[in-house]
């Protein structure tokens, strides 16, 4: 069954069409990629799916339910989590606190008990323990009490993924997880994504500008250019697709011209 489906998804900013009629199906358990040159509309697609942007038109379905225009926290509650292209950690808090916050939707006690600290000790300990365990699993246990802002860049990315995992999602959206990483870090990230995909039974959709990560880790890739889907297929098919080459070449010439 399709876990995520979009039909005719479109977004217009002012007069600019960022995404135009994007149809997409993601099956449960897939590890898929969405690529495209700069400004192709990838992040806009993510923002619409995760509820941060309301699409101009079109529909989004998650596990058979329409989630178009639901606010972000409602989307998260239904089992979807995401990371951000330009890391958005709670930068003044520790790594552990970052992850603890993400357990929010599993908190059972209400406001009154929070004000009175009525029997919340055990649940708080459980949250703290689960958060700590999650940090252990992503290899950040020693960083638990460090302020997120002070972590090295690669670890901040990893922490952001851990935080997304803490919401216990079925679908994880990764927005350019390799941005700003060197070759070694990217290689490590590749293994890491593969690992969490298998360990947590996740469905993962990765956005990447840089092709090497996606080509190595995704089994199916969709290419977006000027807000439209121009190709879809296995990494090999994508690599040899003339339209894809053209889209990326066009960008390179533009880069040179700049």
């Amino acid at each position, binding site marked *: 069954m399709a876990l995520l489906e979009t039909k005719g998804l479109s977004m217009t*900013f002012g007069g600019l069409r960022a995404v135009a009629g994007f149809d997409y199906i993601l099956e449960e358990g897939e590890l898929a990629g969405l690529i495209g040159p700069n400004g192709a509309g990838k*992040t806009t697609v993510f*923002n619409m799916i995760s509820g*941060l*942007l309301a699409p101009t038109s079109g529909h989004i379905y998650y596990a058979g339910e329409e989630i178009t225009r639901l606010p972000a926290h409602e989307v998260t509650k239904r089992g979807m989590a995401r990371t*951000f292209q330009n890391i958005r950690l709670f930068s003044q808090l520790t790594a552990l606190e970052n992850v603890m916050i993400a357990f929010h939707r599993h908190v059972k006690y209400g406001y009154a008990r929070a004000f009175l600290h009525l029997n919340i000790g055990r649940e708080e300990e459980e949250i703290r323990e689960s958060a700590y365990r999650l940090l252990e699993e992503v290899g950040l246990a020693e960083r638990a009490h460090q302020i997120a802002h002070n972590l090295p860049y690669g670890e901040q990315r990893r922490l952001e993924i851990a935080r997304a995992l803490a919401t216990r999602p079925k679908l994880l959206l990764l927005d350019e997880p390799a941005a700003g990483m060197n070759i070694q870090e990217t290689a490590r990230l590749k293994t890491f994504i593969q690992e969490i995909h298998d360990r947590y039974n996740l469905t993962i959709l990765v956005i990447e500008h840089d092709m090497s990560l996606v080509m190595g880790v995704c089994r199916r890739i969709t290419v977006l250019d000027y807000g439209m889907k121009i190709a879809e297929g296995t990494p090999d098919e994508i690599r040899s697709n003339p339209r894809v080459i053209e889209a990326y070449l066009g960008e390179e010439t533009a880069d040179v011209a700049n």
Partner: protein
Amino acid sequence: MNEFLQQVINGLSLGSVYALIALGYTMVYGIVRLINFAHGDIYMIGAFIGFFTTRVLHLSFIPALILSMACASLLGVIIERLAYKPLRHAPRIAILITAIGVSFLIEYSMIWAFSPQPRAYPDLLANYQLQLAGLIITAQQLFILGIAIILMLGLHFLVQKTKSGKAMRAVSYDMDAAALMGINVNSVISFTFAIGSALAGAAGLLVGVYYNRIDPLMGIMPGLKAFVAAVLGGIGIIPGAMVGGIIMGVAESLVSGFLSSTYRDAVAFAILIIILLVKPTGLLGKRSVEKV
């Protein structure tokens, strides 16, 4: 109907004063994204300078106006250098708190130095009255309106046609890019404070003449209202401040004329909250979207 028109006339001169103060708010906000809380107090200082130059030095209206503007201008630049500049890269809230502090500092230093008692302003302008179809227009009202219009035209020329004006617009559009283009951002900011404060100083003198009394706390309410006028017109937009100021002045006159003058101050804030909720970018503003 006559009563209505009379209130509109009264509102126009009041509104032009608000517009003069609002221009300073809007220019400063446009450049450094700061609500300069102390701006209303600069207006008060302008009124006091006018008081001393005319009462003590016995100057006439025009030299007093020029001196008020010059001193207000200097004060604005000093405040920026001492209090705001060290915080240019701090969170905006930190600068806002500082501005509140500066505002209180000026107000209570003035009270300490000159007592909170109101002072009577000398009559600087002849007090003629024009009767026109049952409406009363005073010479002072015309004077205020006239001087406000001249100053606003001057500002328009300055911003649109001169090199400094172009630099100002460039910094307001993108401070970092302007700096890269070789524009001295610091002097542009000082210049903006100087011009905005000069206009507030002029407004202070005009109000002193019009209402005939000044006191150290007189800047609080007009300052807040002028800020509302700036938001109403679209903060950062110079014609917006003029439009907003006039609307505020007229609305306030109508409310005090037809309802009760005790509701006068509430009107400004009601307008503010409605505009923030309905069209936060103001009447002449454009929408902007936060980037995720």
